[in-house]
């Protein structure tokens, strides 16, 4: 993928570039908001890694402009504890985030999830991974080949998570998917996620499939094949 890294710390680019290159990605570095917008205008990027603490602007403010300039997936690099900031960035149109400091595996997993979603951009009919397969048209869910019965609400939530497999899905998006109302009571969402986990997880109290992103949303931990 063609990646635009927006970060004013050159050491980050120095550390990331070799690995990303070795994974077949091309990387361009911009060290300011202005530089990022200029690069986005010229280059045809597929992914933007955006640090929110830029010297000339708040990173959140350029998300909207980046969205107008490119079709690229936007992954935010943000500090832990800044949940409100992440939610704001995601609402602005960012697709995912990685907490700083991050390990390279974590970053590569986010990039893989973004790449997979772009490949399947033409709304797929099915989600198929090692353990889980979901047929969106026939409303059929199989876990390790065994069929699982889900209620329509449970299915609606699982579908959004599968369509964003590997990426965070905010509470807001899930509430819209399940209740068509971003202001619906979060308690409904928690209850239905708990029900989903009881049906899909080996141990619902220590989920491996539907992960909690505290204060932000949920993330399906598996990618489609």
């Amino acid at each position, binding site marked *: 993928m063609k990646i635009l890294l927006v970060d004013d710390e050159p050491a980050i680019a120095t550390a990331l570039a070799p690995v990303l290159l070795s994974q077949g990605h091309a990387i361009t570095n911009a060290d300011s908001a202005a530089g990022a917008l200029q690069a986005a205008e010229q280059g045809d990027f597929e992914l933007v890694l955006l640090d929110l603490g830029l010297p000339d602007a708040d990173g959140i403010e350029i998300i909207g402009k980046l969205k107008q300039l490119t079709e690229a997936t936007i992954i935010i690099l943000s500090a*832990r504890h800044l*949940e409100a900031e992440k939610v704001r960035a995601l609402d602005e149109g960012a697709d995912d985030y990685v907490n700083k*400091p991050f390990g390279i595996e974590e970053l590569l997993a986010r990039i893989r999830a973004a790449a997979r979603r772009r490949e399947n951009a033409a709304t797929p009919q099915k989600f198929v991974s090692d353990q889980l397969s979901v047929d969106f048209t026939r409303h059929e869910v199989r876990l390790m080949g065994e069929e699982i019965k889900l209620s329509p609400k449970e299915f609606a939530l699982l579908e959004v998570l599968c369509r964003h497999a590997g990426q965070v899905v905010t509470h807001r998006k899930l509430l819209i998917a399940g209740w068509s109302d971003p202001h619906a009571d979060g*308690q409904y969402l*928690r209850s239905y996620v708990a029900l989903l986990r009881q049906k899909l997880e080996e141990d619902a*109290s220590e*989920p491996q499939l539907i992960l*909690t992103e*505290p*204060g932000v949303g949920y993330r399906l931990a598996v990618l489609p094949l």
Partner: protein
Amino acid sequence: MALSSTIRTRSGNAYDLRSLALDLAIFAIATAGTWAAQEWDRPRTAVLVYVLGVMIVGGRSGLARGIAAGVVASLIYNFFLSEPRFELVVTSLDEAIPLIAFNISAVLSGAMAGRLKDSVSLARIAEARNAHLLRLSDGLQRAISVGDVLGISRASLPFDQVLGLDIFLLRSELLFPADGAGPPIGAAQLLADEARRGASTVCALNGSAGQLGFVRFLLEETASPGRRPDLQGIANILGLAVDRCLLLDRLSETEAQRKSEDLKAAILSSVSHDLRTPLTAIEAAATSLRSFDQRLSPKDRADMLATISEQCGKLNRYTANLLDMGRIQAGIPAYQFVEVDVVEILGVVLASLREAYPAQEIAKQITVDSAVVQANPAMLEQVIFNLAENAILHGASERPVFLVLTRVGEAVVLEVVDFGPGIPRDEQRLVFDKFYRSHATSHRDGNGLGLHIANGFVEAFGGRIAIVSPHFGQRGTRLVVELPLAHPSEVPQERIGTWE
């Protein structure tokens, strides 16, 4: 005589009128008696009766009215009563003597009565002033700030022609109004103001170590300029109180300063140890890899890389802890809290614990499906992680650490249980202090912030943490976190917990 009006009852004017009427009546009776005696040709009796009348008036009402009575008596006697009538003439010594007698007796009786009256009213004034000073110094016992001193002393006014007072504190050659009203002024200006305004008196405010400033008394226009000594008495009492308050201030300032110095020292020692230790390990591993890469065995290389990564994790957690400590210090506003399910957060923490401490056995027992509290999700995650990490670091590594989540009444209770050496009873209330490390375990990992942060966050969520140690024979620590449920009325969905 000016003083006699200073302490005046509310009915003073009516009293004066009655007294005047009585004096006039006495004078009239004396005049009538003199006239009668004169008619009956008893001139000596007549004079004596008049002298008696004048003396009674003088004795009753003081010098001024006595002299007035004497003069009027002289005129009436000379003009109406003595021969030749209707003429003001003194032709013989015989005629002059009664007149002299009237006036001398008036002066003598008046002066004596006046002195008696004056000393009685002086005594009354002194008594009232003493009572006022006593009340004031009683009241000032309660003062703990200069503002209190000002408030209490102003509340005792107006009294004894003093309408108001201001306290000015001397700081670096300038006088600062103690009530903060108005800019600081110089001492010369204050004294010049006094001279100009006339109706105020400025007294020195003295403390144990010299002059503290000035008190300015605002007086009634009619107050006599001779008030300075008794006002200085009030100023001295105020000086004592202000002195005490300033000392108290300085004491608490010193205490606060000492605490902040202690904290600074603790932060510095913590930073130098807890930042440098991982940095040293990282630097050593990284430089070894750079200089000796080819000569190292693949296993050594892998170990060094793992060290770098682990120590980075430690640095990351430590800086997060320092930031969290700052947040607790700054205060955590409750409006940022949202509904959070403790069961979900516990799941997140278990995942990170198993990743950070893969060798440690962690067992859990969760007896509720959900437990929703008002909290900040990331902070709640930090609380559970810190408590569990504390149990892992200070517990017995060969024994599992237990996490137990139950519902008790209107609260959710999380217990973090280890089987380590426990926390000595006298250290139990100290472990939540910043940078506190148990003497028994200070050589171990940990930066003395984990429990402090957990406690600070839990208190911000309206919950509390208790310590039960030892809980297992002579060993083990059980940290019990209690958080109020957001919806306590909802019927809990109990389920059968299993140890895993």
